[in-house]
């Protein structure tokens, strides 16, 4: 991946509680670290903000998909009933839009739900069967009862020695090198 750091992918520090992790993440950000990641078994309030996550594009994606789904659903029914296969039943209007609402609604929901799930997976880069953090032995507890702060090698502030000392300053449970 990179010539200067062929082996080291970053450092990962293990914490016992969510509050320690949030504290450490906040301080790391203040110290200028940007390319870092925090891992926890359950969502921790304020953690994403602490590592500098700002732009959550999920709502916009879901809204757009819902809009397109609804428009698509209505257009399909309009096309079927007015253009492609008009049936004159007692002179009733072909574009009987109130009767088209239920299907339009269902199409809106379906498209929005697909967007919510697949948009989330796509933006999260999932599925990703392998990631260097999985190589860290202690990391199995990230889904169980431990909290991790991970600083990546490609951060501008990253330095093999200094970053290590910086993380040790938080007195983590453990500190591991993440290798490719």
């Amino acid at each position, binding site marked *: 991946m990179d010539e200067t750091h062929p082996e080291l992918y970053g450092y990962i520090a293990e914490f016992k509680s*969510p509050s320690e992790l949030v504290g450490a*993440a906040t301080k790391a950000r203040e110290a200028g670290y940007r390319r870092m*990641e*925090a*891992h*926890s*078994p*359950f*969502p*921790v309030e304020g*953690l*994403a903000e*602490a*590592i500098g*996550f700002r732009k*959550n594009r*999920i*709502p916009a994606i*879901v809204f757009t998909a*819902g809009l397109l789904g609804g428009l698509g659903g209505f257009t*399909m029914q309009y096309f*079927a*009933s007015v253009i*492609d*296969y008009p049936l004159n039943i007692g002179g009733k209007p072909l574009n*009987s839009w109130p*009767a*088209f609402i*239920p*299907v339009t*609604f*269902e*199409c809106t*929901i*379906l498209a*929005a*739900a*697909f967007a*919510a*799930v697949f*948009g*989330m*997976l796509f*933006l*999260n880069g*999932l*599925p*990703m*069967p*392998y*990631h260097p*953090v*999985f190589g860290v032995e202690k*990391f*199995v*507890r*990230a*889904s*169980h*009862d431990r909290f991790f702060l991970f600083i990546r090698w490609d951060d501008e502030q990253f330095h093999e020695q200094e970053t290590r000392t910086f993380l040790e300053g938080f007195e983590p449970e453990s500190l591991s090198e993440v290798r490719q």
Partner: protein
Amino acid sequence: MASENDLTGRAGVEEMPIIGPGHTFATVSDKLTAVVLLDRIRKSWVLGLAISFAFVMLFLMSVTVLFLKGTGIWGLNVPVMWGFAIVNFVWWIGIGHAGTLISAILLLLRQEWRTSINRFAEAMTLFAVACAGMFPILHLGRPWVFYWLMPYPNTMALWPQFRSPLVFDVFAVSTYATVSLLFWYVGLLPDLANLRDRAKNKFAQLIYGAMSMGWRGSARHWARYQTSYLLLAGLATPLVVSVHTIVSYDFAVSVVPGWHTTVFPPYFVAGAIFSGFAMVLTLAIPLRAVYNLKDFITDRHLDNMAKVMLATGLIVAYGYLMEDFIAWYGENEYEFFMMLGPGRPFGPYWAYYWSLIACNIVIPQLLWFRFARRNVYVLWVISIVVNVGMWLERFVIVITSTSQDFVPANWQEYTPTFWDWSLYLGTIGVFFCLLFLFIRVLPAIAISEMQELAYEVDHRKSLGNDGHGTSDSSHA
């Protein structure tokens, strides 16, 4: 829902926490993953699976005979052309609705007690919808061309009739099944990662690993995940209301006496929730006893579900009352005949009608009393009674209105045959078989959500809040 309404309720809250004492996020994870990964295979589980599997065989046999001989093997006749297939369809789909209500609506209302029951209620939804979806398809004379219901460019140059509630139904039920599956799977993702990391067995690691998609609990991932989950809940909420509304349109849009009423959509939705909560209780009470999950599915949960059941049961009762009132007040002789004459209460189906009233209106009134909500045996029996009652309700609606229509010369009574019953019991087998497999291979309680809850409850205590008021439900 009804839990913060009075002082006794408050006192009750204090006695009954939403999570057992002494649990931290670590113990929650240990205990809940152990059910899947470490638990030995219990005899009761094998027995349950074997019995339900026998019914799956019955189901397959019924379907085979149906495919060979056609719907003539059922008790259908000329005025009663809907019969068991539609009764069971509506019954199953209604049962599914409680799962969505618990996972989506109660999430939006910030009812924290939902956390321990949402996962398996969602599974229940999924399996109930699978059972429901089979009936309309099997009821088609030529089930192998069921895909004609979907709009797609075809050589016949035909479209479905988009003005028909039966086509609305196709869209509603298939959307509902898809969204329920997505919601359930998204909820499972972090727990699958947990199982992947805890599993010792190579095969289990591989399967859970593939299913968890490489989830690693990153804070950015969690942020998007939570937004996505909340939006899904927001989408599922109107969806669940629309589904049963549309199911009720199947009846209400027709001009058949006893069907053609505007009260149908709201009371169908309430009835669906009523029967769904009954089914959740029917399943949760034995589940928590067998797997020793009383710390997570506490008496408080049962109490709250009983209250929801009571409230929705009363809405259903109001629906019945309004139907009868309008039949009398509207002075339509056909309506009057159906609702207040020989059609339903005083005709050939009187026994079904009055059993339905007893099961759905009279017996659930016991839930006003605390002893009935606290005694698991009484509560379990009531939940079964409500399940039966809601099935009878659909039977009465579907059968009575069609069997005695406008012209007495058309009248025919309906008698279900062996194959009607075998298919119905068969789908119950399918439902339970899937549930038995589910509780063995996937976490029946949402682990990461329970961890979050355990942490919050713990955190609140350490902050010195007395906790019980806020842990119940915020009014946000």
